[in-house]
């Protein structure tokens, strides 16, 4: 078997992993299974990074998203609410419509961004310096602002988490 076809097969395997994992994540009523689906999708994404010849990104994807974020999601919800309290939340048609609108809007914005962007042809093998040192320097100098903005997103998430728990306490949900 040629080397090229083997990598093609892996590429499609990763795609199947991502789509299947995402489907499990949104359709499973059991939280644990949903998170496993999410982890699977993350693994698939890491595989795609590997396919694009960026092992550093792939490993970071596994370390951060599979190793930390997925665990935090499960942990947060398991500690936060008992199944009884979760069942008390009635999910009616209003929620379905809101969810549909939100996801369609997100899809529209992403699609807009994708179609408007002028895509630059990537340089071939050996075209750019992709070493760890070059990556670090680029993040700290040229893309410094973007790098710092990501940490602002993290801070907003933390403030949001605090706000949600405060509201929960006030409503006696604890």
């Amino acid at each position, binding site marked *: 078997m040629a080397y090229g076809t083997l990598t093609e097969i892996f590429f499609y395997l990763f795609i199947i992993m991502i789509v299947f994992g995402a489907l499990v994540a949104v359709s499973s009523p059991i939280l644990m*299974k949903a998170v496993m689906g999410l982890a699977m999708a993350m693994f698939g994404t890491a595989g795609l990074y590997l396919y694009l010849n960026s092992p550093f990104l792939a490993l970071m994807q596994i370390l951060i998203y599979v190793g930390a974020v997925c665990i935090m999601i499960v942990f947060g919800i398991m500690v936060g609410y008992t199944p009884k309290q979760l069942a008390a939340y009635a999910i009616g048609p209003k929620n379905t419509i809101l969810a549909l609108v939100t996801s369609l809007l997100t899809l529209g914005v992403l699609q807009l961004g994708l179609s408007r962007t002028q895509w630059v042809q990537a340089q071939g093998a050996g075209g750019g310096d992709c070493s760890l040192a070059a990556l670090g320097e680029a993040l700290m100098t040229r893309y410094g602002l973007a790098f710092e903005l990501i940490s602002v997103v993290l801070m907003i998430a933390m403030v949001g988490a605090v706000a949600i728990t405060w509201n929960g306490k006030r409503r006696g949900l604890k």
Partner: protein
Amino acid sequence: MPPELLRMIIAAVLVVAFVFLNAMILGYMERKVSAHIQRRPGLMEVGPHGVLQLIVDGLKLIGKQLVVPEGSNKFLFRLAPVLSFAPCVLPFVVLPFARKLQIVSMDISLIFILAMTSINVIAILVAGWASNNKYSLFGTFRSVAQAVSYEIPMLLSILSIILITSTFSLQGIIAAQKYYWFILIQPLAFIIYFISGLAETNRAPFDMPEAESELTAGFHTEYSGMGFSFFFLAEYANMFTVCSIATVLFLGGWKGIPLPLGDYTGIFWFMLKVYGLLFVMIWVRWTYPRVRFDQLMTFCWKYLIPFSLANLLITAVLVKLI
């Protein structure tokens, strides 16, 4: 068949065989050392000084039925042991056993190992949750909280070595210890790393997730037969990985008194150092009592993290100055 594929298959077989062998050696070591610490002979029946006992135990475990408890999530329950075992094998692929004994040479092998060991927590989470058992769930909670907390001082102490060597390649880090081992200039980082390693692998005195006297066996209470063995193998493989990273980062890896065929026989020094550290781990387990859970968290957040941060800061300043 392409030679590269053949090489990968041979490597995979060797690595899995070594993981099993390692569990046998450590299992024997643990029982023998604990016995001698408690002034009793320990394993004596099967083979001379009981060396064949672990083989018999292994056969017994293979022969046992895997009981799936009532009301558990069947799929996740069966998935968890595999999920725990598979990532624990992978770090062995990049470990530098000697100058030329390394299966895959990566320039980010340290990150690879850290990423693979971080998957183990998810396996514990799945195992504890799928068992539908309160002891398992308690063990899981403790284990995850502990692993997530102790990962921070561990990474910070590794980072201070990375600042000195400015490479993530394990061979590169060994090469940087040409004149002295890094334990001499980073003793605090070594101590912090070793303590966090004990906690990460759920070893006593931090074995809260498996505390026998309160939780039966923690997250793997419901597992029998090979399900249990996979967790057992994974734990010992993880211990080996933690100790070999310590060896590479602080104790000069495969370096030692030169032997003939030095490119390959470095494995002797590597194994000697790793099993020396593993002996210390076992020694600690049978010497110190288990800590309380709040003590465990206090120790991590109020002592280890500030100390490792200070160590990192001082290292950064010194590296910049020199």
